[in-house]
């Protein structure tokens, strides 16, 4: 098979795939094509889409490859889809961040950090499949330990958990100034 043929097939597979496609899976379909070749073809395809400012780009996410629209087109897509953006509340986002960085973690441990009850938020996150119970902690009561899911990685465009933004060291933490009389928005100081 010509390299261009392989690239074309890969692009088709990425188009019909329902989620991120792993190299492993691509290898199963494209028998005889080595992993190194697959990887370099994917890199080529990625560069092509990027350089030609195409309407879909190849992104490495949740352990695989996926075609996604570039951010620059977001408004047009939203206008087309007509939906309201599903905003995640602060409580949900904060709890999710704690779980992402501290997994596996129990409900009680999350509550100790946030200083509030997190039952409702945990249920929301479970419903949205952004977290799941991964095990039980070996302490009295055997509480569930929660961790993030591949859907979490997909939601935040993360290749894997090691690509989470680095958590600040305690010494680096500065409180953002309060902008005027408005609600404290997500404007956090650059460090």
């Amino acid at each position, binding site marked *: 098979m010509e390299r261009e043929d392989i690239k074309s097939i890969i692009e088709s597979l990425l*188009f019909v795939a*329902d*989620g991120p496609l792993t190299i492993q899976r691509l290898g199963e379909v494209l028998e005889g094509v080595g992993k190194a070749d697959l990887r370099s073809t994917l890199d080529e395809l990625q560069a092509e889409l990027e350089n030609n400012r195409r309407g879909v780009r190849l*992104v490495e996410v949740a352990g695989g490859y*996926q*075609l*996604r*629209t*570039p*951010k620059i087109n*977001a408004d047009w*897509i939203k206008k087309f*889809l*007509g*939906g*309201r*953006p*599903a905003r*995640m509340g*602060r*409580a949900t*986002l*904060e709890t*999710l*961040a*704690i779980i*992402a*960085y501290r997994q596996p973690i129990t409900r009680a441990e999350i509550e100790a*950090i*946030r*200083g*509030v*009850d997190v039952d409702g938020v945990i249920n929301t996150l479970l419903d*949205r499949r952004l977290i799941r119970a991964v095990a039980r902690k070996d302490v009295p009561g055997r509480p569930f330990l929660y961790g993030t899911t591949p859907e979490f990685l*997909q*939601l*935040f*465009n*993360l290749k894997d958990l090691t690509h989470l*933004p680095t*958590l*600040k060291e*305690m010494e680096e*933490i500065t*409180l*953002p*100034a*309060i902008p005027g*009389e408005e*609600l*404290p928005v*997500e*404007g*956090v100081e650059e460090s």
Partner: protein
Amino acid sequence: MTTRVQLEIFEGPLDLLLHLIKKNEVSITDIPIAMITEQYLATLEVMQTLNLDVAGEFLVMAATLIHIKSRMLLPLTDGDEDEEDGGADPREELVRRLLEYQRFKDAAAELERREVLTRDVFVRSVAPAEDIPAPEFRDVSVFELLTALKRVLDRLPKDVVHEVMLEKITVREKMTLLLDHLRTQGSILFESLFAGVTTRMEVVVTFLAMLELVKVRAIRIFQEEATGSIQIEAAADLENAPAVLAMQDPEEDQHGT
């Protein structure tokens, strides 16, 4: 001097404290505990005035702050080694918690700045159901149902009529009637369920019939907005309704007035 408190949606006591620290532009590692405690308590008071449900955690933190404040008033003496942490700054633990919490607030903000799926970037046809503008239906709470029931009961003629005639209405009859209604009309308003009903007993029986049908998931009750009218519609395939009824045998079948 009146303290004007800008009320915001605080996620919890730590969030409120961080806000106060920022607002007063004081150092998080050297919190002027008396001032912050005072403002913290003032905020709680406003929340209570507004009848907001001040969660227990807010009160626990209030107690913690007062405890720290009182400990800071005590002179440090050398012989205090038996104190919990041997004369360490009583604010230390609180500062650690605040910093830890801020750390995850920062992390959350960092996550939100990423290219978020269905906000910044999209994939083919996998538009999550939540994003598609579905008609906004809320589940009706039991309390809303009870309030609606009370309105119906209040509308009944006040005159006390002593009916001697024994009128038998069964929950099952009402269930069948209601299902017949839905079969022909699709959905009906909660209030119209009680059209023509004049006795308290019949209102109650009708209400029970409705609850029974909800229990077996034959009907759904919802409202379009918090204060909107409550609507009832068939949930299951109504052709199977007789089967549903057969399965359901309300323990008490006989009601009379």
